[in-house]
C-alpha cells in the first residue's frame, strides 16, 4: 500500500515516499515521513507494516551511530546495505520484519541505491520501487531513466511518477515527501 521509489542521478540519489499512514479503510495521518536519515549522506525509505518499519529503522539508525562512536568512522553505503541485509536475514527465520527498503547514499564521489526486500534480498539498482505502486512506477523509470541525470531531470521524472500514481492508482495518496542526497548532504524537495 505504501509507495516508495527512488533513482540514481549523476551525483545524487533521490528517494520519494507517500506520506499517508493508514490501516484497512482508515487513514491515520497524511504527513508521515517514511524517509529517514541514517547519517548526513544516507537516507532510507521504508514501506510495509508501520510497527516493524519504525522499529527496524530506529534499530538500524542507532546501531550505525554506535558504530560511528566505536570506530570513529562511518560505514559506506555498500557496507550499510549489507549490514541491514544481515539483520533482516537473521530476523527472517525467527520473527521477520515485514519492511521493504530503499537505501540511497553518496560516498566516494558516487551515488548508489540499494533495493532490499522483506526477505532480505539485496541488490544494487539504478532505480527501484516497492509496493503496488512499483507496477506503475517501474515502467515510467524504464522509459525515462538514463545515465547522468541532472537534478532537474530527475525531479521531473519523480513528478511523472507521482502523476501516474494519482491518475491510475486506486489508493489516494495526496502527499509525497521527496528527499535528495548528494555530496552536500540531505535535502528535502
Amino acid at each position, binding site marked *: 500500500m505504501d509507495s516508495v521509489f527512488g533513482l540514481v542521478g549523476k551525483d545524487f540519489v533521490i528517494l520519494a515516499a507517500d506520506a499517508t499512514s493508514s490501516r484497512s479503510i482508515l487513514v491515520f495521518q497524511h504527513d508521515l515521513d517514511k524517509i529517514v536519515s541514517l547519517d548526513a549522506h544516507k537516507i532510507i525509505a521504508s514501506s510495509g507494516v508501520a510497527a516493524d518499519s519504525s522499529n527496524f529503522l530506529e534499530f538500524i539508525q542507532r546501531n550505525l551511530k554506535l558504530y560511528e562512536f566505536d570506530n570513529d568512522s562511518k560505514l559506506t553505503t555498500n557496507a550499510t546495505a549489507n549490514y541491514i*541485509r*544481515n539483520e*533482516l*536475514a537473521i530476523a*527472517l*527465520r525467527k520473527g521477520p520484519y515485514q519492511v521493504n527498503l530503499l537505501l540511497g547514499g553518496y560516498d566516494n564521489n558516487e551515488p548508489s541505491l540499494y*533495493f532490499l*526486500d522483506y*526477505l*532480505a*534480498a*539485496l*541488490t*544494487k*539498482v539504478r532505480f*527501484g520501487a516497492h509496493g503496488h505502486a*512499483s*507496477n506503475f512506477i*517501474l515502467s515510467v523509470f524504464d522509459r525515462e531513466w538514463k545515465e547522468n541525470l541532472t537534478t532537474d531531470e530527475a525531479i521531473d521524472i519523480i513528478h511523472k511518477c507521482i502523476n501516474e500514481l494519482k491518475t491510475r492508482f486506486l489508493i489516494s495518496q495526496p502527499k509525497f515527501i521527496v528527499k535528495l542526497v548528494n555530496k552536500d548532504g540531505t535535502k528535502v524537495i
Partner: protein
Amino acid sequence: MSILQYNGGAVIAMKGLNCVGICSDLRLGLQQQTVAMNFKKVFQITDKLYVGLTGLATDVLSLEHLLNFRCKLYKLKENREISPKAFGAMLSSLLYEKRFGPWFSEPVVCGLDANNNAFLSGMDLIGAPVFSDDFTVAGTCTQNLHGMCEALYRPNMDPEELFEVLSQCLLSAVDRDALSGWGAVVHIITPEGTITRTLKCRQD
C-alpha cells in the same frame, strides 16, 4: 508459486577436457516483476572452485556469505585451499543441518581439484548430492536446461567449445522461461586460469 521460484534463476555447470564451465542468468525478480538485471548467482570460492546458487535470493546471499566464511576458516586451519569434493560435502552438511527449516536454495558445485580433474555436483535444498560426469543444472527452468544440455553436450570439449555450448544451452533455455534471463555470465575454469564473459540475451 513455489518458494524456490519466487526470485527466478538458472545455473548450468558442464565438464570439458581439462576444464569446467559454470554459468548463470542475471535476473532478480519478485514473482512476475523484474527488479534487477545484475544479480549473479555464481560465486568464486577459490581460484578453481565456483558454486552456483539458485532459489530464493536471500538464501543465495546468506549461503554465499556462509560458504565464504567457512572456506576462509578452512584455509586458516588447514593452510591450504579447500578441494571441490570437501566443499561439496561441507555444503551438503550445511544444508542438511537445516533439514526441517531449510535454506531455499539448490546449489551446483563446479571446480578442478589439485590434479586438475573436473568435479561437478548438484544438490537439492536439503543437501542430497548427485555427482555428474557431464553437466548439472539447477533453477526454475531445469526441464529446458536438461533438454538443451542433453542435445548439445559432447565429451572432451576444449575451453572455447565448452564456452559456446554452455552459452547456447543457457540462453536458449532461459529464453523460454519467464522467470530467468536478462543476461548471463559464464566462467570457464582451466588449469591456467578462469575466463569470465558476460552475455547479452533477450531482454525480456
